[in-house]
């Protein structure tokens, strides 16, 4: 069939061009990183088994609540976000969900040596600045055991993994630095509905004040993530979260230490915000395809009926 041969030539050159400008060109332009499964292999493994009851004591005695809130246990943060950002550069997180969102090994390393776990030494100790969170030096007993106890305590008070919604994972892991204005999220919380202009302006002032301080702390205001699912894609987001330095050496973004499941939830949240019609796209697509196959079949019959008289 001559027409099929011609079609094969057209398809071949089309695919060749496509391959060259898409998969090939992008493989040249972008470093490809494979996820290591959020194992954090460079960190010290958890050697001891923690005890949650003891951990509650250690947590209080270690002074964590001097900076961190624990809302679910009736302990609000000692400062509001604007006061906290003025003191520390960034608002210390509320730890109610920390045990569910962050990896246990990461949490233990973070408590013992925050700068190292967060991978921000290049911005602090190596740059002559001190990191706002002080390392936990132990209460005099076995430090590894004490750290393990604190982690066990945080896990015991955290919601169960299946209760953590994509939005909760995002707020805990990313929401103090990144806004998502397509979901009304600001660095100081959800933008409320306002009755009076003055309240709106007051809220706006707080947001801008927080952002200015955060910009000073990080060198640049972290981007709004509303469209990141389309501009970066799932794979980039996942590998970037796991190890920001690998894809963007020198970035001020810390390694946040989310567990694999939480990372997937964060990505799901970003997809819900930036690509909210993906399920509809898929289902409408199928219907359109069925319609077009019927259309093509009828068009073929019509063509045959007319051309049989012409040949």
């Amino acid at each position: 069939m001559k027409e099929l041969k011609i079609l094969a030539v057209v398809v071949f050159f089309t695919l060749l061009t496509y391959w060259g400008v898409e998969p090939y060109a992008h493989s040249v332009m972008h470093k490809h990183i494979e996820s290591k499964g959020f194992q954090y292999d460079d960190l010290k493994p958890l050697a001891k088994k923690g005890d949650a009851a003891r951990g509650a004591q250690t947590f209080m005695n270690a002074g964590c609540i001097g900076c961190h809130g624990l809302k679910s246990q009736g302990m609000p943060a000692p400062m509001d976000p604007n006061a906290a950002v003025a003191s520390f550069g960034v608002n210390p997180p509320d730890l109610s969900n920390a045990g569910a969102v962050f990896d246990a090994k990461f949490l233990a390393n973070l408590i013992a040596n925050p700068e190292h776990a967060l991978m921000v030494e290049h911005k602090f100790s190596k740059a002559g600045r001190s990191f706002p969170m002080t390392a936990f030096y132990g209460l005099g007993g076995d430090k590894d055991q004490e750290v393990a106890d604190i982690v066990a305590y945080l896990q015991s008070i955290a919601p169960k993994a299946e209760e953590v919604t994509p939005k909760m994972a995002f707020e805990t892991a990313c929401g103090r630095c990144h806004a998502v204005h397509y979901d009304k999220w600001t660095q100081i919380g959800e933008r409320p509905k306002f009755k009076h202009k003055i309240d709106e302006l007051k809220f706006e002032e707080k947001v801008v004040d927080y952002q200015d301080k955060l910009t000073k702390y990080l060198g640049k205001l972290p981007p709004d993530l509303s469209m990141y699912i389309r501009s970066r894609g799932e794979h980039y987001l996942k590998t970037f979260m796991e190890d920001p330095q690998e894809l963007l050496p020198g970035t001020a973004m810390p390694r946040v230490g989310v567990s694999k499941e939480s990372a997937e939830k964060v990505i799901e949240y970003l997809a819900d915000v930036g690509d909210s019609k993906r399920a509809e796209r898929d289902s409408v697509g199928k219907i359109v395809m069925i319609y077009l196959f019927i259309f093509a079949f009828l068009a073929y019959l019509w063509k045959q009926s007319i051309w049989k008289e012409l040949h």
Partner: protein
Amino acid sequence: MAHFEKAHSLEEWLDQRLAIKTLRRVLAEEYWIPKNINFLWAMGMVLAVTFGILVVSGIFLLCYYQPNIDLAFDSVNYTIMQEVEFGWLWRHMHAVAASVVFLIIYIHMFTGIYYGSYKKGREMIWISGMLLFVSFSAEAFSGYMLPWGQMSYWAGMVITNLFSLGSLELNGLVEWLRGDYVPGQAFLNRFFMLHVFLMPLIIMALIGLHFGALRIPHVNNQDGEEIDFEEEAKKYLAGNKKEAKVIRFANDFLSKDMFVVSIFLIFFFYLVFWHFDFAMDPINFDPADGLKTPPHIYPEWYFLWSYEILRPFPKDPGLIAFGFSQVIFFLLPFLDRSPNVAPANRRGLFAAWFWILLVDMIVLTVMGKVPPMGMFSTIGLVAAWVFIILWVALPFITKNEKAV
């Protein structure tokens, strides 16, 4: 006052006033097309359908798009993509059609080159087609500015900079085009106007000219055979359809066109729903930021070959080479000195010229996207020279071509 009889049907009534029967006969039933054709002859109809998709989806997008540098990005990515019912569908159709229309234009062009459908009376078909290519390019570029993402902004910056014409440093001209020192509100407004009004108007007029240019020389066929259309039409009308070398535009040719269109639409909508990234660059989902240059700036795939003719040379020679690449296709009917109208594979050296040109343009396209470093720069430079040499050599290659 003209004399009108009472009409007995709506058709008759309309015919008395608009001569619709004559129109139908002249434009469809007795508009004769050669029978000896393949599916590549349906690309014109595929283009018409794709242009139709662009116009209709564009009208829907226009209902919600805001040509304002503070609102444009969100009006596209939030209002249209998320709030408006099926806004995402219109946007994906518009973006994918804008890319696919160029694929079909290139297939249509290379079909014309392969079968020699640009000479012996068909020069105006070719020239009006090239004018359409240039207008579609302007339409695509102006539309690319509208979402006001990072690629919109930086592509706007780079392309308008070309008008400083290298060492002539016509910076005043660049500012005049932008309406500002850098792309801003004035820039977005004028490209919006170009995209939704002036360019579509020009394109529609040129489509009319392109169709009109076909009437007298008629459509070419697979063998480049000169057909006596009147004689063949007589055979057809006498009922000798099998022997006649011509067919009616409607419904004979149309029925084949519609089958090809249906296959095309399956391909098109597959891309719209499941494979749209090639037409919607991820970088353009970052809002425009004049203080942050993306690490890689490249045009959409259909401009890459001419971009790569600009890029490997120093500034002024690069601009000259770029200008050359923009106008040279217009001259094809006059650079091809052979009187043969035949498929390239029967035309000796011209066959080699055709395939080398095709492969060379694909190489240029790929090299236009990858960063201009090391081996890629060399390949790009060689491919750019091959392109220029091919066109310079064309008159010499075709001058001594044997008559087919």
